[in-house]
């Protein structure tokens, strides 16, 4: 499954980078290179081979862990990309953590108090959350908390291992910006799942049996209502990875999103290929784990 996904992604990525109007040989030697020099370089790089052969060679190298050499820096792409991925994952993990801490209680409160003021406030917040793209919320957040109130640094990245507190303070704004849309989405999902579960016969049976509201909620309702959240969160990782691109660009965080933007702007084909492949792989692996986790928690589902 993951293998097929990555194969298709590798084909798409390779196809797109092949159609891109960029000639790797011209990029490396500059516009003024002689045709002979260009031909020689193309020959050594294998660029004169038929497309399918280039694809096979590239794929073979990728399978062996060699993601190619950057046309921009001349350094191997793989190590740089994975280092950047680490920083992005840190950002993503903090965002998912913040989202879970806030979205699940919000969704539960809205579901139990359906139609009451608390429910309306939560839906209002969730509508507001999906109303603005990340670059707008990020810009407004910088203006408010960095420029006016001077509480937090506007941009930049400090590794947590260098200076923990400084590193955290640089992460607060990006993490909050990324989580907003996730919180809005997940709290709504939790609410609607829980509302559905609370209307089932087994919940009514448990209440009629004389169990307390809290006990029914904790032992019966939440267990079933929170299961689909796993799938939702896993699918939202795709959204998260997209959001990371914009947020890293705005807050100048040297993560994989920023690397990709730089690579796309410079038409650095090997870097683009590697970046997209790593992002797609991350998404597929997360969803694969979510599927397994789901089946493990819900015994009614069995995968072959």
């Amino acid at each position, binding site marked *: 499954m993951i293998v*097929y*996904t990555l194969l298709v992604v590798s084909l798409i990525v390779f196809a797109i980078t092949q*159609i891109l109007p960029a000639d790797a040989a011209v990029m490396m030697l500059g516009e003024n290179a002689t045709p002979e020099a260009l031909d020689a370089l193309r020959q050594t790089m294998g660029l004169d081979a038929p497309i399918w052969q280039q694809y096979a060679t590239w794929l073979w190298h990728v399978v062996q862990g060699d993601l190619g050499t950057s046309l921009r820096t001349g350094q191997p792409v793989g190590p740089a990309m994975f280092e950047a991925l680490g920083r992005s994952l840190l950002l993503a993990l903090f965002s998912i953590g913040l989202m879970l801490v806030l979205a699940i209680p919000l969704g539960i409160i809205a579901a139990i108090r359906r139609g009451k003021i608390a429910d309306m406030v939560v839906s209002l917040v969730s509508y507001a959350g999906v109303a603005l793209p990340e670059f707008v919320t990020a810009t407004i957040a910088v203006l408010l908390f960095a420029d006016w109130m001077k509480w937090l640094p506007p941009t930049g990245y400090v590794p947590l291992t260098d200076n923990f507190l400084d590193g955290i303070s640089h992460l607060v704004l990006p993490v909050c910006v990324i989580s907003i849309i996730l919180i809005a989405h997940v709290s709504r999902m939790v609410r609607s799942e829980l509302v559905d579960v609370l209307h089932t016969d087994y919940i009514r049976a448990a209440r009629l049996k004389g169990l307390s509201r809290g006990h029914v909620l904790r032992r019966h309702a939440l267990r079933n209502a929170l299961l689909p959240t796993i799938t939702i969160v896993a699918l939202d990782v795709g959204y998260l990875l997209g959001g990371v691109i914009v947020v890293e660009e705005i807050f100048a965080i040297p993560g994989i999103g920023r690397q990709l933007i730089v690579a796309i702007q410079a038409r650095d084909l090997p870097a683009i290929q590697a970046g997209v492949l790593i992002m797609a792989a991350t998404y597929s692996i997360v969803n694969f784990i979510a599927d397994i986790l789901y089946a493990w928690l819900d015994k009614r589902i069995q995968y072959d």
Partner: protein
Amino acid sequence: MTEFIKRLLKTPQGAIGTFLVVLVLAIVVFGPMVAPYDPEKLSPLARYKGPSMMYWLGTDQYGRDIFSRLLIGARATVVMAVLATIAGTLIGALIGTASAFLGGRADELIMRTIDAVMSIPSLLFALLVVNLLGSSTVNALVAVAIAFAPGMARITRSVALSVRKQDYVNAAIARGESSAYIIRREMLPNVIAPIIVEMTIRVSFAVMLFATLSFLGLGAQPPAAEWGLMVSEARRYMHLSAGILIWPSVAIAIVAVGFNLLGDGLRDALNPRT
């Protein structure tokens, strides 16, 4: 139809959503006619003005009237988003229906491939497509449409499959109705409803995706009055006047919330059961 509209307007989401979307569409149609100023006219003496009787929402870093720019930019922002969503939905619906209709191995192959395509974040996909075609508004439209197609294909397929299994379809088959009748009268009305709901909600995503592409310099180009581009350009001058940043953000938010609410309202109105 009137009964349906009544049902839509009865819920708060439906009523507010309809109001906002009608407002936005009115601005799209009539905005350029009522705009008080030329959106690209520079007035160096009237830069960074706050809201006043003369400039309702103030002026930007070049002294251009923000209100006029928003009114005229509505076309670039909203029309493109709607068109891209419709195009993406059509492509997706075609693939999804074909997949559900073919079934078996072909269905499996198509859906696995769609899963694979969806593992590339849609923003990244759009970035790659725009980079491939060159940055312009039309290319951004194509990019967003292509980025939306796989998701819509998945939804169409699952809806078509679940409708096919419904009792009323089996009942129609048992009654001896023709396939054309069943598809037209029994399946289509039930397949279209969820797709329209999804499409309405996706318009707001499209607006944001367009704005984000423009922000990254890959969509509309200056001096266009596209809202995302306005936010992007305002970033450098926001310390001097927050209005340049706030107003186009509010405009984007109104469109996004409007289409989101309308989608939720439509969903409730189309499903009288819940």
